[in-house]
């Protein structure tokens, strides 16, 4: 499975440096992809840039980045000039700190990438950094410029490779206090708690990727398949709407839990 690397650069721990590459851990390629069409003609819709003053189409090679200097006043910056921004973090992931794996809360995780050595000569250095983190149960912390922003990143060993997470900025994560402070934190009654724990135990399963299948995508593909057939003999079918199941209005939690457990037993037979 050869995926074009999204980024190439260097991984550095103190005086050890190796060349690495990175691909996003998520991919849109298997998603049902739609194109935008022009309904009257059935042709594809394309987007292009036009000059905001003259209204004339702008060729791709004439597009250039402008850095605002004042109102309607820009400095043009070419891509190779931007490459020279005076930050090592454009090319090098310098792992400057390590921290216990659970000390960075999940809420900070933004986007995952897979990091691996780029050349055979770097494999040993890469493996040294990976295995030492694994042995110490640590994650590495560094910074990296991605999409013209410098991001804090976290490196976590994973199998033979490393997962690199971009971390959210401080002002992007909302303070949980505003949401959780008002929660009435009453300790549940011991018998109720033991019932709910029983229920949880009964419903605990091993993680399975089937838990994240997408029935909607399958349905869309069915619709498309039917329409393909219908292109030959036109007929109209309406998709049926599934019945709505309103949540039960349960007043007594104890009774409900007992009912749940009884139901579990039955379904287990």
């Amino acid at each position, binding site marked *: 499975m050869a995926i074009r690397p999204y980024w190439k650069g*260097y991984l550095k*721990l*103190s*005086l*050890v440096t*190796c060349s690495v590459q990175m691909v996003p*851990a*998520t991919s849109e390629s*298997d*998603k049902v992809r*739609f194109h935008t*069409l*022009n309904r009257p*003609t059935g*042709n594809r*819709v394309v987007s292009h840039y036009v*000059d*905001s*003053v003259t209204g004339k189409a702008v060729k791709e090679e*004439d597009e250039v980045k402008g*850095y605002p200097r004042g109102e309607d006043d820009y400095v043009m910056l070419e891509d190779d000039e931007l490459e020279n921004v*005076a930050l090592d973090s454009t*090319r090098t992931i310098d792992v400057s*700190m390590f921290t216990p794996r659970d*000390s960075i809360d*999940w*809420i900070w*995780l933004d986007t995952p990438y*897979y990091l691996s050595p780029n050349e055979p000569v770097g494999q*040993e250095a890469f493996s*040294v950094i990976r*295995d*030492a983190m694994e042995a*110490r149960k640590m994650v590495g912390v560094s910074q990296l410029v991605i999409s*013209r922003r410098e991001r*804090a990143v976290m490196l976590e060993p*994973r199998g*033979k490779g490393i997962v690199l997470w971009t971390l959210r900025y401080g002002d992007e994560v909302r303070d949980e206090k505003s949401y*959780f*402070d008002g*929660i*009435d*934190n009453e300790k*549940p009654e011991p018998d109720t*708690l033991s019932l709910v*724990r029983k229920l*949880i135990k009964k*419903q605990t399963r091993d993680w399975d990727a089937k838990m*994240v*299948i*997408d029935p909607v*995508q399958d349905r*869309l593909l069915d619709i498309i398949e039917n329409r393909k057939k219908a292109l030959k003999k036109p007929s109209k079918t309406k*998709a049926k*709407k*599934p019945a709505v199941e309103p*949540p039960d209005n349960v007043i007594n939690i104890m009774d*409900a*839990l007992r*009912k749940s457990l009884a139901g579990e037993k039955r379904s287990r037979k």
Partner: protein
Amino acid sequence: MVSPRANWKGFIKFGEVSCPVALYTAASSADRISFNVLNRKTGNRVRREFVDGETGDIVERDDQVKGYEIDDGRYVVLEPEEVAAAIPDSDKTLTIEAFIPCSQIDNVYFDKPYYLAPEKMGAEAFALLREGMEKENVAAIARTVLFRRLRTVLIRPHHDGLIASTLNFDYEVRSPEEAFEELPDLKIEGEMLELAEHIIGTKTGKFDVSKFDDRYEAAVTELVKAKIEGRSLPKRKAPVASKPGDLLKALRESAGMGEGKVTNKRSAANANRGKKADTGEKADKTASKPKRTASKTRRAS
């Protein structure tokens, strides 16, 4: 206290118990785009236009419709109502389908986090669920229609509340096993591993993510200034990768020990690991003050 606005209100259902809850966006991603696209020839800003690929005529929003390509240039048109009909009606309920041991959570699936808190009359059942999950060390998998999309959500206890993370679908996540498949099975042992572990020990610290600063914009401003003043832009040296034969030497030097005295020094240094940084240069590199001067960052590897 002004209560924040909920992004979604509904129920969470475990077994036969349902509890009124609300979801609140826990993290937003604010894009900081500091560039505009210009027309190089005129220097004017550009704007986007949607046109018919064949005729070149502008296509109004109302005429834009979704098409699925079945073969080259032939499309099945799906009207918005048809797409909407494929999504189940919202029952406004996060129905817990299963609990999974926390150790089995694969964070690579994580999409967006939401704070999940009880609504009026829900506090008792909410506390019960949270407490039960905490005690059993599990997270819950639930599915519901959120913002007009059917989503799988992973719910886990977090202090007094719960955090619900939407999960990416199976086909949206590349398997790490496949991504790393072609890497050799290299297991590092012995002195190399010990040295690297020692280096990690000296660089162990507390990272305050919230204090991290994006230095990119400042660096670009610097670049722009140089350009305006007609100064030449500095060419940056490419980092040099360590040669495999020099790896052990590089590790020894990084660990702050020359050849020969490795064994003695290591144990001594291990005793106060986590306190001292190997060299002064790293000590001030904690996240609390990441804004170093440009000259310092430019040091060659």
